[in-house]
């Protein structure tokens, strides 16, 4: 189970790729589907590698991304 999850609001995406460049795990890539603005929205191509670090969302100018992270398990 991945540590993090990236939720993409594709309609807001403008295909700028800043999140793709920011992701240290190469989770994200520009996808093939086109949104209503005519941009290829970003997709999570390797969601299993997501650590929930939020760096993609920090660099996104259009608040496309919501990030969830698994709470650390208490022992």
């Amino acid at each position: 189970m991945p540590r993090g999850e990236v939720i993409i609001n594709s309609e807001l995406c403008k295909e700028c790729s800043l999140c793709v460049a920011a992701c240290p795990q190469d989770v994200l890539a520009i996808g093939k589907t086109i949104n209503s603005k005519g941009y290829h929205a970003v997709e999570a191509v390797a969601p299993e590698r997501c650590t929930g670090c939020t760096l993609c969302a920090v660099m996104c100018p259009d608040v496309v991304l919501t990030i969830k992270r698994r709470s650390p398990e208490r022992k």
Partner: protein
Amino acid sequence: MQTVFQKPEALTDVQMHYCPGCTHGIIHRLVAEAIDSLGIREQAIGVASVGCSVFAYDYFNCDMQQAAHGRAPAVATGIKRVRPDNIVFTYQGDGDLASIGMAEIVHAAARSENITVIFVNNAIYGMTSGQMAPTTLLGQKTATSPRGRTAEEMGYPIKMCELLATLEGPAYLTRVSTHDSRHVLQAGRAIKKAFEMQQQKKGFALVEVLSTCSVNWGMTPVDALKWVEQNMVPYYPLGVYKDVTAKEGN
């Protein structure tokens, strides 16, 4: 799973009109996050400028006013003096603040008006399609300096933080950047501090944020961030230029 990042409440659901990869969107979010984290959304009054950020009043989920070109610090002065319990900020670009608005910003700083100024410097006039700005770098090609800016013909780019730091008035002056995630997080902390200074009635606070204009610079958004790091940061050094709370040892 718990949500660790989501749209701040101080941003509306309106889709921003900025070009793909424009760092205005990032800076809007940082301002909204600062407003959320200080819990001042009901008190905040923003003053939008003229330029690409003219529609900021649609994007911030707090009271907003629109000022004439360059006059945002004067309008903010009026709002703050009439309503001193509100938190008043301006959001201005370099064409607005450093060119037509130079008089207003210098005098607001000299009076140490208790307002917060977010100054977005992308070294060009973005909205009007890429003319030379006061902050355009030497050698930088724009629509009105097609062979590159020369000091002989067009003078030198203005360093606003350094210029305002010569005044007694300002309480907090800092320059931050948006060229990578580490610097964006740093910029967020600086913006939050600039709002806190106003809450503590310290006086004039300005955060200069180095920003991109990939369309008018003629490069991809990713390359534009590299251009900021390689060309703008050396001429506009990042750092704190004035901080009255540092002197007090806080």
